């Protein structure tokens, strides 16, 4: 399937899916689906750098929070409309990724990983001390009174936005994967030195995939303050984002765009179920952490790895 056809199909599917689900009478569906879709975007975005390029980003929560807090700042400044919030949050997160990447990607890969982990702590400190966006107390971001397009409630609009954002993330990921850039990234992942020697512009490609990945993570966060109506640093910087956006691609499979999607839907839904049935937040995180360790030690290629192995056996 060519990229353009895939983009059209993905968008058509997203629109149809969003429209059809408006018939669902249960309001809780939209709240739960919003969270799962948020993880679809985060996992897909993480995989652009982690799966395709082989660089681990532990700072998903930081970039997510950048998106969320740029929305808070815009809301406080002039009650910006939703599209402006989404675009600005995406750009700011991409810029932060550019800065981090430029400083650390020239060194060994592990330094990027460590710096991304430390970035969460520092940005957290920064937000806690920044009173304009609420500081440690948190800030209210109220949903607009009237909902556009004749939708019954604002959460329906946020849900549709999330479906479209997920489609955008998947299209971007697949386009990169199938392009020459994607092949360059795969070369970096498999052997960076050999790639550099064969004329692959490694630094430029690494910075490119970092910026795209971080920008998409920021995009996932832009509607978050509106979703909750209230945001505080510890919810925006929740470690759950960092661990989930790593666990989901690893469990689904990191080699193609479909792995993170499967991982996110599976793991995201399981967490929603556990939350609803047992209302045990901490247990949720323990399950994700345990699954991450189990998969990474016992099934390093994830669910898609099993599928591929099964296909090969059948083909023989």
């Amino acid at each position, binding site marked *: 399937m060519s990229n353009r056809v895939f983009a059209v199909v993905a968008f058509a599917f997203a629109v149809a899916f969003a429209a059809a689900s408006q018939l669902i009478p249960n309001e809780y569906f939209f709240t739960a689906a919003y969270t799962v879709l948020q993880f679809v975007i985060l996992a897909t975005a993480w995989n652009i750098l*982690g799966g395709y390029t*082989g*660089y*681990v980003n*532990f700072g998903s929560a930081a970039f997510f929070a950048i998106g969320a807090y740029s929305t808070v700042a815009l809301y406080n400044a002039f009650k910006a409309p939703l599209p402006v919030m989404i675009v600005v949050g995406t750009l700011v997160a991409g810029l932060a990724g550019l800065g981090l990447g430029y*400083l*650390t990607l020239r*060194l060994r*890969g*592990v*330094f990027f*990983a*460590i*710096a991304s*982990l*430390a*970035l*969460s*702590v*520092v940005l*957290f*400190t*920064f937000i*806690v*001390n920044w009173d304009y966006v609420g500081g440690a107390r948190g800030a209210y971001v109220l949903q607009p009174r009237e909902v556009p397009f004749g939708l019954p409630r604002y959460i329906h609009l946020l849900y549709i936005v999330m479906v479209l954002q997920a489609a955008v993330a998947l299209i971007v990921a697949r386009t990169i994967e199938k392009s020459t850039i994607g092949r360059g990234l795969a070369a970096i992942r498999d052997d960076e030195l050999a790639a550099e020697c064969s004329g692959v512009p490694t630094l430029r490609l690494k910075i490119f995939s970092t910026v795209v990945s971080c920008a998409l993570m920021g995009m996932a966060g832009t509607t978050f303050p509106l979703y909750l109506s209230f945001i505080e640093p510890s919810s925006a910087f929740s*470690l759950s984002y*960092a*661990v989930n956006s*790593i*666990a989901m691609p*690893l469990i689904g499979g990191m080699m193609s765009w479909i792995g993170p999607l499967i991982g996110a839907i599976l793991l995201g839904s399981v967490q929603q179920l556990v939350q609803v049935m047992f209302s045990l937040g*901490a*247990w949720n*995180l*323990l399950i*994700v*952490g*345990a699954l*991450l*360790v189990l998969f*990474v*030690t016992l099934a*390093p290629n994830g669910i898609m790895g099993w599928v591929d192995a099964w296909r090969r056996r059948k083909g023989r």
Partner: protein
Amino acid sequence: MEASTALVINAIIAGLLLGGFYAAVSLGISISFGMLDVVNIAHPAFIILGSYIAYIVNDRFGFDPILVSLVLSPLFFALGMVLYRIYYLCFEKRGQESLRGLAFFFGILFITEVTLVLIFGVDYRMVSTVYGDVTWRAGGIDFPMRLVVPFLVSVTMVVGVQLFLTHTFFGRAVLAVAQDQLALRLMGVNPVRVKELAFALSIATAGVAGSFLIVIQPVQPAIGREYIGLVFAVCVLGGMGSIWGTLIGALVLGIAESFTSTFFGPSWAPAVSFGLLLATLAFRPSGLFGR
């Protein structure tokens, strides 16, 4: 003495004392990351685990937490051996340590933290010691014992490890692993065995450092995360694999943090280590005493 001079001297002393503790916290990373090339980002989780074990024993029996951690350090040593075995078999042997190995340690960090939250909740825990509330005063300068005692034990531990590495056969084998594993193999030494024991040593130091932490301040499971940036900042600043560098780097960071909290407020202190880490990576990636 003038008030501002006293403030500066107090900040320096507090920073040095804090830095001694940071040296103990980073010592393990200096071994595992700096020498063995094992990026153990779960190191702070074992520090917090050490804090909680010291807390439990202190709470039940009233023993001194630092003494407890020294007695129980073989437990952490054994834990480190098991962990390295798993890491070696699943990642290092297959050449997958860069991405999946990191994710593995991240998962371990996470599981440890969440398990501690499930057992103990998110309340701050503290220990009671005979020296906890004692403060020496000399010419307007404070020497709080809850910082001085960990500082002394910590510096002793760092010096001890350095002497061990340079003056014993096994220690030199560890240094050799850091330089050339193949050569070590040709000399008839098994590098995996050496790395296993050295990694175990690094986890043992984490357990002891955990007891320092809970003597210095109250502990809850999530504060381990603040130390991730710190330990790597100290390790990189000091120069990879240099124990003396780790000690100096830790003292520098301690003083920088102490000045930041004195003059800008304590809520900014966590940002210092990251700033220092980024600056080191940008301007001198090999660190102060790097090879």
